[in-house]
């Protein structure tokens, strides 16, 4: 009775008054169908049920859900400011979710575990996001002038450093993963000679991505982020400097060790020079094969024989020999 009565005022003709006096209109409640079906008790042992008259405990009257008192133009961000599991008495939406027998409506929001299980984003309504963005705007400095395009800022800031912070509900605020530091840069931003570039690429190995032309160092062997960062920068510096050093044993690199075909140090150059200087006498200037020919031979051998390379080779040979 009491709950029935405490709801009396909800049915007050507030709306009609509102029309006259401009009172805020309260949101309407969907009528709840309550079926008073009791659980049957499974009586395994057929003991005579002992009827004990329990003393009725006097309970304080329960108030109706507070959604009834919410105005339709209320500030929802104040009612639901932070993430929280769904509560039917606080959300003035006629939500239904769950499965029942065919044809029946899905269970209403009251005592509905389905609605409580799924994560909701009631705290992230567009107005809430707008308000929060507005509130933290004052901590943002403007974008630097002169760095408007990606090309510009990439030229001025060639190295990317990526670190990650973790926030977790554990007794400790530390997370081992946070020590990881990733630095990456475009190889084209470094100045190399051919030997240094070759050596650098050999040193970094698969840390170089050929498709994007980037070198990436991931360091996690030290316990602290600062140490890992320093170590990554050290690695970059050391590899770079080391790549310019020519060790004595590098001179003993034989043709079998070469990773690409080079015209300059190969038999075909000698052969071509032989042909070009067929009739030359001792002491005459030697004619060397033109660079276009050298290039197309290199291309033919390094890339393999295909129609284009072969045709090009034919043309260059003809040009060289003036046929």
């Amino acid at each position, binding site marked *: 009775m009491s709950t029935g009565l405490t709801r009396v005022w909800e049915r007050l003709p507030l709306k009609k008054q509102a029309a006259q006096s401009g009172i805020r209109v309260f949101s309407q409640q969907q009528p709840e169908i309550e079926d008073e079906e009791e659980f049957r008790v499974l009586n395994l042992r057929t003991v005579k049920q002992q009827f004990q008259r329990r003393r009725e405990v006097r309970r304080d009257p329960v108030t109706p859900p507070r959604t009834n008192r919410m105005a339709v133009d209320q500030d929802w*961000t*104040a009612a639901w400011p932070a993430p929280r599991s769904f509560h039917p008495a606080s959300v003035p939406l006629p939500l239904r979710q769950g499965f029942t027998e065919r044809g029946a409506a899905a269970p209403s929001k009251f005592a509905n575990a389905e609605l409580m299980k799924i994560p909701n984003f009631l705290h992230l309504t567009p107005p809430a996001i707008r308000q929060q963005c*507005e509130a933290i705007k004052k901590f943002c400095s403007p974008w630097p002038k002169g760095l408007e395009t990606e090309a510009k800022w990439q030229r*001025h800031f060639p190295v990317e450093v990526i670190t990650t912070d973790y926030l977790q509900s554990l007794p400790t*605020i530390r997370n081992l993963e946070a020590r990881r530091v990733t630095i990456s840069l475009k190889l084209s931003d470094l100045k190399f000679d051919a030997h240094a570039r070759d050596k650098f690429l050999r040193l970094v190995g698969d840390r170089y991505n050929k498709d994007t032309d980037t070198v990436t160092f991931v360091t996690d062997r030290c316990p602290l982020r600062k140490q890992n960062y320093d170590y990554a920068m050290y690695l970059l510096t050391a590899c770079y400097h080391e790549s310019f050093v020519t060790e004595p044993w590098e001179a003993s690199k034989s043709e079998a060790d070469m990773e690409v075909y080079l015209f300059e140090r190969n038999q075909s150059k000698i052969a071509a020079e032989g042909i070009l200087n067929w009739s030359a006498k001792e002491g005459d200037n030697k004619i060397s094969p033109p660079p276009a020919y050298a290039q197309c031979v290199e291309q033919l051998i390094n890339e393999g024989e295909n129609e284009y390379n072969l045709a090009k080779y034919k043309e260059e040979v003809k040009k060289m020999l003036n046929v």
Partner: protein
Amino acid sequence: MFLSRHLRLLPRASIARSLGSSGAHYTTAASSNAAPAEEDSPFEIPNRIERTPTDILQALAGTVGRDHTAPHYKFHDDPFLIPMSNAAKRTYAMSKESGRKAAKWIKEEHRELFLHQEAQPAVEKFAPSMVYTENSEVDESSLQQLIAQSEVKDAVLVYNLLEQKGSPISADLKQSLLELVCFHNNQEPLPEEYIEERWFIQNNRRRDRHGKTWKDGDLAEKLYAEIEPKTPQAYASLIRGMAKYLQCERAYALLQEAGEKQIQLDTNTFNSIIEIVSYLKDTAEQRWQLCTELLQEMSQQKLRPNLGTLNAVLQCISTFGNFKLARSSALQVLPEFKQLGVNPSLGTYYYLLIIFCRERGPVSHVIVDILNDIAGKEFQIEHPKDTYFFATAMDVCRNHLNDKSLAKKVDELLHTGKNYDLVGDSFKESVYYRNYLALLCQTESIEDFMLTYDLLVPNIYIPEPGIMEEILRAIEINNAVEHVPRIWSDMVVFDHTHRESLLLSVLRIMVDNKPNAELPAQQQLPEQCAKVALDMYERVEEAMKRLRKVSFTGQMLGNILTLLVRGGNFEKASEVFAHIDKNQHRIPGTPAESALHEYVEASVQEKSPSQALAALQYAVENNMESSALAKLIHEGFTLNETHLAKLKTLVGESFLDK
């Protein structure tokens, strides 16, 4: 788990520095060759906007307003767990806190289970506290630590142990122990983390005006005696301790002694003596004289007065019985302190209010000037009495000036910035809202008042029965019967249904303001009123069984009867009438004649002559005007023999002959 990924870009200059650091000839190619050709567009990175670690959180929290339909966030947001009376609010909050206490007790009781420290960085409060006994090994550093944690009991214990062992204690440490003991009067203070207890405790402990609680000849004085030669700090701490716990005579004597010995004391020590001037002298003139003497002494010692001095002087003035002297001396003090550059706090204004707005004194509008001065300002706590301002200001608005617009200004000030932190405790908050609501319901139109009522009740403030009576009176004056069902449901929830005066006025409002069925807003009212009446009837009946104080009166039952009849619930109405009829000897008074009249009219419509005759019989037996009823019955029904015979026996033959 949340994670945030940071991308940092290193500028070319810094990478070049790193690569070129070893000074080898070839590395310069990396830095210098590339740069000059492309260094076309200069850029400038703006400075980082400085912020503290919590600034962003506070900015985000600033976007969240108050949801008036929700309870305070310390309670669970669930209809079953939202407290709906002042007692429930207190109980729920305190039970939550007692859970915390139980956890703390278990932590101390089973300390062996809590020795592990999983948290990083370690949370000291989660570890069991150190236990000091007669046999524990202690040294100066442990005493120092205990004083820093303000653990009075343990500090005293450790001090005694050190004394027994005869180990020396440095003068500084002794002084800080003296300060600790004086500040807390050698009693364990209420731990700081029990905020709910602090919020509710002031209700029953109002020791402001109680006598001395200083422990004479206790540890503080012993410590003081040990300090030789006497330092100004030792004097100051003992004097302040004595003044705080109202050992007034000795505190003043000590001050004089220090003066004779030419010991330089500090401002706050003088402030503490000025605060207790009213205990030292009896009449206003003597108090004022002593006060000025103390102030002169301060100026001789070249001490700069501060806010504490101002408030202490005003406190002294507020105890003057002589209104004129109080007024003039307050007006004298204020400009002088203004000249000294002391900014008043809310506590200062509190004292001004109690000096100027006295119950017996003339009406003073000082609060208008105060509000003009401080409107829109944000305050921080500076003086213990700052929290008294809002409750007192609202009290002045209601009882002294009865001014609605002023009250609204005070409320606006309370909700400016973080000023709500200064509302005090639960008691002061409820005094504040009691005065605010009572004032509004007397001065505002009922529609505007109900808007405020909707905002404040029940989550911020729950009206006491006295205020409920005021609200009902306002409704009665405005004939706003349409609000009664709402108010009644609140009364049920707040457990006001056992106050006879409240029940009577609810019924009176509903009976006297017969709803006009032609207005669309009032079409459902008779039905609702009948429901309220029926609910009230059932509640009172139940309450009588439970031996509560409330009981029916004839008047009350008559009103319920009328309302049920008007609501068209004749069945229940006849039940209520049967109750009246059966318990005639127990119910004091009789229902109004109009109630019986309406009942009989309804029974004519319902064609139930026996009920009508019962009503007539009741009227005859209780010596009420019965001829009108009889006429009504006679004309309304075509009575059969038995009924006719009964009618005759009740009102006599003569009636029918007419």
